[in-house]
Each structure stands twice: as C-alpha cells, then as structure tokens.
C-alpha cells in the first residue's frame, strides 16, 4: 500500500458566534492516498464543507482552525506561513466550489481567471498560460474554447462555469482536487456530465479527489472510499461499496434509505431522516446522533462512541451498530427494518 499523500489528524475548527463557540469540525482524522477519490458525506451543517476549507485554511472569518494537523508531503499545512500556504493553494491542492455562478469573479474574463491560477505560481508566462487555458477548456469539454476564454462568467451557462472552475482547479496539475458540492447548483443532466468529467480526470490524470457532498448518489458514482460526517465528527468510514452494502452507523443507514431508487418497491415509501440536525452551540450529550436515532440505548445518551473497526477497512462510531440492531430485533432481511413503522423498536427499547 502506498503512503498517504494527505494525513488529517484530529482537525478541530471553531466559530466564535454571538451565542458562543460552535465547534464545526470536532476531531476529524483521515488519510488520502495518491490518485484516490474520497467522498465526504453529510447533511448541511455536518461540518463537511468546513473540513474541506480547513485543509487549506480558507475558513471564513469568525471561524478558526484551533487544533490538529494537516500533513501534506510531510509538512503541516496548519503551521505554514501565509506565503507558504499560498504557494500550496491552487498549485498542489486545488479547490472548486459549490456555486460556479458566485465563485467566478463577475468583472474578470473567464480565461483570465484560469490564467491567473497559473500565473500566481509562476508556472507559466502569460502566453503559455493562455495557451494552456484553451487546452484545459477543451479538456473539460467546453465547445469553442478559443472564443470562450474571452467571455465573462455571466455569458456562460451554469454547467460551463463549473467546467471552467474545474479547468481552473486542474491548471497547475495539482496532486489533490477538493470539490465542495460541485454539482449541487446544477441541473440534473449537467450534474451527471460534471461527475463523469471528474471521474475521467481522476482516472486519466491521477489527481486525488476529495468530493464533498450531501448526496450519496454522487459518492456512489465517483468515489472509492467514503467518510460520513455528522455534527462535526466522522461517524463512519470505509470503502464505498461496502458501506452501501452494509452500513453500520444508523445515520449512514438512514442517509442511504433517503436516496430515491428506481428499483424500489412501489409501496416502499422514500424515507427522510426524522428530526433536525443538531444545534452545534449545544451539542447533545453522548452520541450526537442519539436524539434522532431509532436504535439508541441508554449508553448512547451518556458516552460518546469512538470510531472502531466494524468490518475489514470499515469503521463506525456507534454503540449499537446496525448488525446488532438487526440481531436484537430478530430481523433477518437487511432491508426489512422499519423503525417507527409500528413493528419496529421504540427508542430505548434495546437493552445494553
């Protein structure tokens, strides 16, 4: 196994708000291997985007990375000087964002904004940068790239803008591309094209991708490994297929149940996760998911679970885990558990 290109250790990011301190990222650790594509999934407010921003120290103002390490090629990105981290940004680790409409500067030509990514790191002369921009735009399949470089962002369609953003991210051939919900603001058909493009680039260029999304479907299409975040913490981690097949954290399980499926039985209703995302100003005691968890036990209210091996390469932070929940309920069929549907468990019924 190759050594990881990025090692995140116990990352903690806090926001100082009027109401108090919000710990948006609370002790997140993970590894990223060269050429890998890793998904980070969670609801809005789970801390997935803040995690991504923390890696490059781009957390907006009341927020601050307060602890941990982000080791990239043996240097801790959190300890670098402003000038050193600037050189990493965009050159070694690039990032693209959710809304291509607002992420491109409206008063600068699209082509120039891509040139700039290269010029900022003295990777090319103006002329070379310009030529490479056209090449990149072709690569991300923007038609008539030669004339599009002169367009302003408002003259491009949403899909084209996101392609331009991706071209910008790839311009310095970075080792890692962080994509923060790159498809959320786009039409469904365009979403698929963008994902396909990212998958191709991942395969052809060997760029490692960290895909931040709330959409399990996106992860299934693109990633090989996935982290599931809830309330600032990683609650489950493992290979995508394995997690889809056999989720062990009830949160992952409910996330998966909320994906619409074509092959689902007609009478099977799409489920959403009950309850609200937790208030991070006053996080719940014990396991942060327990107020919404259909399988919680006494212990979940008191003690915070840690990530532990639940299957080969798969870890989950749960006192109960889905395997045990099923066993206790006597359900054989994996898809048969329907909490709250009458036949299932009532909260607290499971005995530790």
């Amino acid at each position, binding site marked *: 196994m190759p050594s990881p290109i990025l090692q995140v250790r116990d990352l903690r990011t806090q926001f100082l708000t009027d109401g108090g301190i919000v710990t948006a990222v609370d002790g997140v650790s993970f590894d990223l291997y060269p050429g890998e594509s890793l998904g980070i999934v969670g609801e809005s407010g789970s801390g997935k985007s803040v995690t991504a921003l923390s890696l490059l120290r*781009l957390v907006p103002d009341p927020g601050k990375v307060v602890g941990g390490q982000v080791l990239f090629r043996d240097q801790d990105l959190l300890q670098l000087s402003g000038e050193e981290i600037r050189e990493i940004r965009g050159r070694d680790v690039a990032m693209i964002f959710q809304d291509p409409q*607002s*992420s491109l500067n409206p008063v600068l030509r699209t082509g120039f904004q891509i040139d700039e990514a290269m010029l900022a790191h003295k990777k090319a002369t103006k002329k070379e940068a310009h030529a490479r921009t056209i090449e990149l735009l072709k690569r991300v399949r923007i038609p008539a790239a030669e004339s599009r470089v002169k367009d302003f962002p408002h003259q491009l369609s949403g899909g084209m803008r996101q392609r331009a953003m991706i071209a910008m991210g790839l311009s310095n051939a970075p080792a890692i591309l962080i994509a923060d919900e790159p498809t959320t603001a786009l039409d469904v058909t365009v979403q698929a094209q963008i994902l396909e493009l990212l998958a191709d680039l991942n395969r052809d260029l060997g760029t490692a991708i960290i895909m931040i999304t709330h959409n399990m479907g996106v992860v299934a299409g693109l990633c090989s490994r996935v982290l599931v975040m809830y309330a600032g913490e990683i609650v489950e981690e493992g290979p995508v297929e394995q997690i889809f097949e056999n989720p062990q954290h009830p949160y992952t399980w409910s996330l998966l149940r909320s994906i619409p499926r074509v092959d689902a039985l007609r009478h099977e209703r799409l489920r959403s996760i009950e309850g609200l995302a937790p208030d991070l100003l006053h996080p719940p005691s014990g396991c942060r998911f327990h107020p919404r968890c259909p399988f919680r036990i006494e212990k979940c209210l008191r003690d915070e679970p840690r990530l532990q091996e639940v299957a080969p390469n798969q870890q989950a932070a749960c006192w109960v885990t889905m395997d045990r929940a099923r066993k206790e309920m006597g359900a054989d069929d994996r898809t048969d558990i329907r909490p709250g549907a009458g036949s299932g468990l009532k909260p607290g019924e499971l005995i530790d």
Partner: protein
Amino acid sequence: MFTRGTLIYIGQRLILILLAVVGVSSLVFLAIHRLPGSALFSEHLHGQQFQLLLHHYGLDKPLWQQYLNFIIGMLHGNLGESLVNRGVAITPIVVREMSVSAEVGLFALIFTIGLGMLLGIVAAVRQNTWVDYVLSTTSVIGYSMPNFVIATFLILIFAVWMDNFTQHTFYFQIGWSGRYGTIGEIWLPAFALGFPYASIVARLTRASMLEVIRQDYIRTARAKGVREIVIMVRHALPNALIPVITILGPLVIGIITGGVVIENIFGIPGLGKEFATSILNRDYNIVVGVFTGYAVLVGLANLGVDLLYVVIDPRIRY
C-alpha cells in the same frame, strides 16, 4: 467594451442632453424675462437712448419673438450679448469658463474618489480596529464640514499661517494665474471641493468592500493561491467600485454645484464665479448663459458616469 449599440446610446443621450439644455435655458430665460429690461432702465439713460438700447438687445419685441430669437440663437451656438459690457459675446466666455469649471471639477472628482476609496478600503481591511473607528468618525466630520469651511481652513493653514511661519519662503499662492490653473493652484480648491464627498465615498467603499470580501469569488481567488494584495486590488476593488459608481451621478452634480462657492473663494474664473458676478452686476443675459453652461456640464458629466459603468461592470450593456 464599446459596441455599436453603445454608440447609438451615446447619440440618443446627446440628443436628450440637447433637449435638457434647451429646456433649462428656456425656463431660466422665461422666468427672468422682465429683469433685463429693468436692468438697463436703471442706468442713467434718457428715453430715446433707452429705447435704442432695448432695440439693440431685441427687448422691444413681444416676448414670444424674443424667446424665438433666443432659441434660434442658442441652436446656432449664440447665447447673446452681455448687458453690461456691450458688444461682448457670451458664448465664448461661457465655453471658456465651462472648461475651467470642468477642470477643477475633474481634479476634485479624482481626488474624491481616490482618497475616499483608499480610506474606505483601509477601514474595511482593518474592520473593527481603532483605524476603522477613527476613519468612520472622521468621515462624519468630513461630510459635516461645508466646503467653504474646509476652504477657509486650507487657506488659513497653507496660505496664511505657512506664509507667516516660513517668513514668506514657502506658502501656497491663492488665485489663478493663467487660463488654466497650475497644479499648485488647483489642489487646494480641489481638496476643499472634494473632501466632503470623499467622506461619503469612504463610507460607501467601506460597506461595499466588507460585502465583497465575503463573496465566493474572493474565496476562489484565495484557493488559487493569488496574493492577498492582488486579491484586494484585482478581485475585490472593481466589484466594490460598482455601488460606489451608482452615487457618482449625484456626486458629480454636487461637485459642480459646490464649485459655485469654491470658485468664488479661490478666485477661479469658472462658471461659478461668473454666476455670482453676473448676478451682482445684474447681467441677466450672462445668468441665462451660465445656466445653459451648467446644463451642458451636468448632462455631459452624467453621460460620462453612465459610460463608466460599462467600463467597470461587464454585465452592463447599452
């Protein structure tokens, strides 16, 4: 940047300006139509001479004919003749004074925007520090000072006290030597004229910068590894400029009208000085001419502002 559509737009605007100029001067002409006659009458003239004079200025004709002559004359670029200095044509005077007023106004405008934006940016970048508080408070003081008060203190400091203090070796000459002033002569009036507006621009720039530096595209630029100073100058500033430009229209009008006072204090031979002098001399033909000049100046300045939009914000097309 400028397409054929823009040229058509400019053409349309020029026609509108012409209409506005005719409208303004007609209003003023009709409003004061009785005054020129009585102004002449007040001179020590005998009946016959007075009648000759009235005839000379066409004031013996019925009003509608006077007005028609005035409009026809104006469309030919002829604003008539001074009532006080007989035989002196008004158009060349007004045109020359317009250029002087425009020169002072332009300097004041550059100064206003330059200083205002600089202070606004500094306050925004140093938000909620003492720098910010000092600048915000100074800004209220700035726009609470009438321009003639600022002019007064500038003259006191740079002309009077500096003169006394350095024993007449180093001080600023107040006045206007040539047709167009020198830099040394123009910067004090431009400062006095622009300072209150610079305070307003600083406030607006601060608010707009604070808005802009929170935008996603600034984050994108950071994520690309662009230097912070470049981000501020190239990415934030042009966007922060857009709301500032929306007040450029009122700002330019304010500077033009403020010039009336400033030109009189500093003795600058522009439209404003002429305005005060002509009212004092009761030279009503020149009053009408000065207003015509102002209408042209305001119209062109507003057109200039609208065209600036196109340069700064590529989303705007005419």
